[in-house]
């Protein structure tokens, strides 16, 4: 049985805002009967056509699809269209107290429907494409290159989800978007997209800050050790422990494979260079006995 949070269960059993808005300003429809889930989202705007005053939905799908739709409509009310567009699928999932990874695509469906509704209202290109399934929901004008033919998903859309949710494997992309979960033919392309996105993230160089308070410096040292250095050591079966920080002097002890390793001096040097690079130029790393 799925491990749904009490909030997911509540929004499934008592969904908010089910129905339609006959004079809706914006309507977004994604998914199909064939896909196994579908969402039709209605938005009513204020007289300036900017702020969402009402949102309703109809969903065909599993418990988490219904809960995600319900959550989304609650989140939308009172927001401007631009604010609404900044809602990510992650926030929908967080609103629900989290979703099982295999069900993340339900939150993505909410985000998709929202984007479609607003794009159609504004007369902009539709961000996703419902392809093969002839249920009258095909969008002729979609953005990007079609990657997953089974579920009608484009590279633009997939890259966005990969980036927002920091996805690293094709399996995760399938859990989040369904892409690759049908015939599986697009899995190589999905891997390419992941590489493109992660490559892009790495391109943004992290810069050493100009000035640091002692407190901030200590924080950053810890962050760099956790995020950049320890994972490297783990890869070789090693580890390190931060013993103390005194001004610019950082004391570390090497653990596991690194402890007593002949090249631990080199490792300490590597840590020092990294910290100098990312935190402050004057950092000195000292190795202390474990």
């Amino acid at each position, binding site marked *: 049985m799925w491990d749904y949070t009490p909030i997911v269960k509540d929004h*499934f*059993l008592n*969904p908010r805002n*089910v129905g*339609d808005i006959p004079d809706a300003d914006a309507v977004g*429809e994604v998914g199909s*009967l*064939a896909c*196994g*889930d*579908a*969402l*039709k989202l209605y938005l009513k705007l204020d007289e300036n056509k900017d702020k969402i005053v009402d949102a309703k939905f*109809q*969903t*065909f*799908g*599993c*418990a988490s*699809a*219904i809960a995600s739709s319900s959550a989304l409509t609650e989140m939308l009310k009172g927001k401007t269209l631009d604010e609404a567009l900044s809602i990510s699928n992650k926030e929908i999932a967080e609103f629900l107290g989290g979703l*099982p990874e*295999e*069900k993340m695509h339900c939150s993505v469906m909410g985000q998709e429907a929202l984007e479609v509704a607003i794009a159609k209202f504004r007369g902009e290109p539709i961000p996703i494409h419902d392809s093969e399934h002839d*249920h009258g929901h095909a969008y002729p004008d979609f953005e990007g290159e079609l990657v997953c033919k089974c*579920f009608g998903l484009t590279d633009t859309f997939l890259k966005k989800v990969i980036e927002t949710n920091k996805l690293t494997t094709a399996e995760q992309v*399938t859990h989040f978007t*369904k892409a690759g*979960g*049908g015939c599986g033919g697009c899995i190589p392309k999905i891997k390419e997209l992941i590489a493109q996105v992660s490559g892009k993230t790495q391109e943004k160089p992290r810069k050493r800050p100009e000035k640091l308070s002692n407190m901030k410096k200590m924080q950053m040292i810890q962050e760099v050790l956790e995020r950049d250095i320890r994972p490297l050591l783990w890869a070789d079966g090693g580890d390190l422990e931060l013993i103390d920080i005194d001004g610019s002097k950082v004391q570390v002890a090497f653990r596991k494979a690194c402890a007593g390793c002949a090249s631990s001096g080199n490792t300490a040097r590597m840590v020092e260079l990294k910290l100098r690079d990312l935190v402050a130029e004057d950092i000195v790393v000292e190795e202390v006995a474990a």
Partner: protein
Amino acid sequence: MKEIYLDNNATTKVDEAVFEEMRPYFCELYGNPSSMHFFGGQVQEKVVEARNCVANLLGAFPEEIIFTACGTESDNTAIRSALEVFPDRRHVITSRVEHPAVLTQCRNLAQKGYRVSEIGVDGEGRLNMEEYKAAVDNNTAIVSLMWANNETGVIFPIEEAAAIAKAKGALFHTDAVQAVGKIPINMATSDVDMLSISGHKLHAPKGIGVLYVRRGTPFRPFMVGGHQEKSRRAGTENTAAIIALGKACELAATHMEFENTQVKAMRDRLQNALMTSIPHARINGGLADRLPNTISIAFEFVEGESILMLLSELGICASSGSACTSGSLEPSHVLRAMGVPFTCAHGSVRFSLSRYTTNAEIDCVIREMPPIIERLRQMSPFGREFLKGKA
């Protein structure tokens, strides 16, 4: 909350009498049947008795019964064995609707260079016998076809299929996990060479299975390293579970008629009531010969997991062919092989009854199901279109 358990094709309640039978073999009579002392010997006697009970239910000889850990182990063992005893035969036949315990193994074999034929089924889930007959040849090492389908309950003509395999010198294995105890099976008049049973599908505990291997059938063990089961399945016997399974088989024989009259009557009543009260529903495999306890019913415009969750809120336990329940994205391979439209496959629910099911429980499902489907259709864009059209 008191459960209304209608998911007996997934697993069953251990019969109280079965539990009583196995209880002493944990803390008191825990001896190893292989031991030379009286303490192990008395357990050995009970294992012999249990083997006789299983054999009786199948119309088999006791030495044809090999105890395993589960139905999956039995399935894997049977297919691997056949390929080892016939190294020159490089062809395997199965069906598109098999349990993954067989299907995955066959697909792995296909990757290793074996030729694998997956025989199709018609819209009612019935085996395409013409396709099957044409597929069996002198290169076929083994045919593995399920006796009854776990999702739809559809029964395959196993005796006829086994005879066809025999004529070409191929071994015939059947996954009878869902059939044993529900419909009569008699190995004495059969051409089946190997047959798999799973204890927990017939009111014995989980973790015990049987592979029936006909006398004289060439066999290579999967588990080696011990003389147990005449060296056909090494490993210390799961004595308590074996003894439990023996009792469960004895009871199954006595309840068989009840399954095919009373249980079947409740199943039919449930089926007729749901088909009458809920529009746009269909029975998957409804026209085929089916197990007496199983009904797979598809509701259009709604999704299976949602139905199960709402049923579960009321204590009703069922199962689904929907993609969402398994975490996969495609609906059940069985329903797809039958050509059930996607629109229905996603909204399929399976109820599987047992001898413990009561008429009051069936009444409850008959009462609760229509509002659940109505509620979800009201919520579904497709359901609303349909309801609007109806108005």
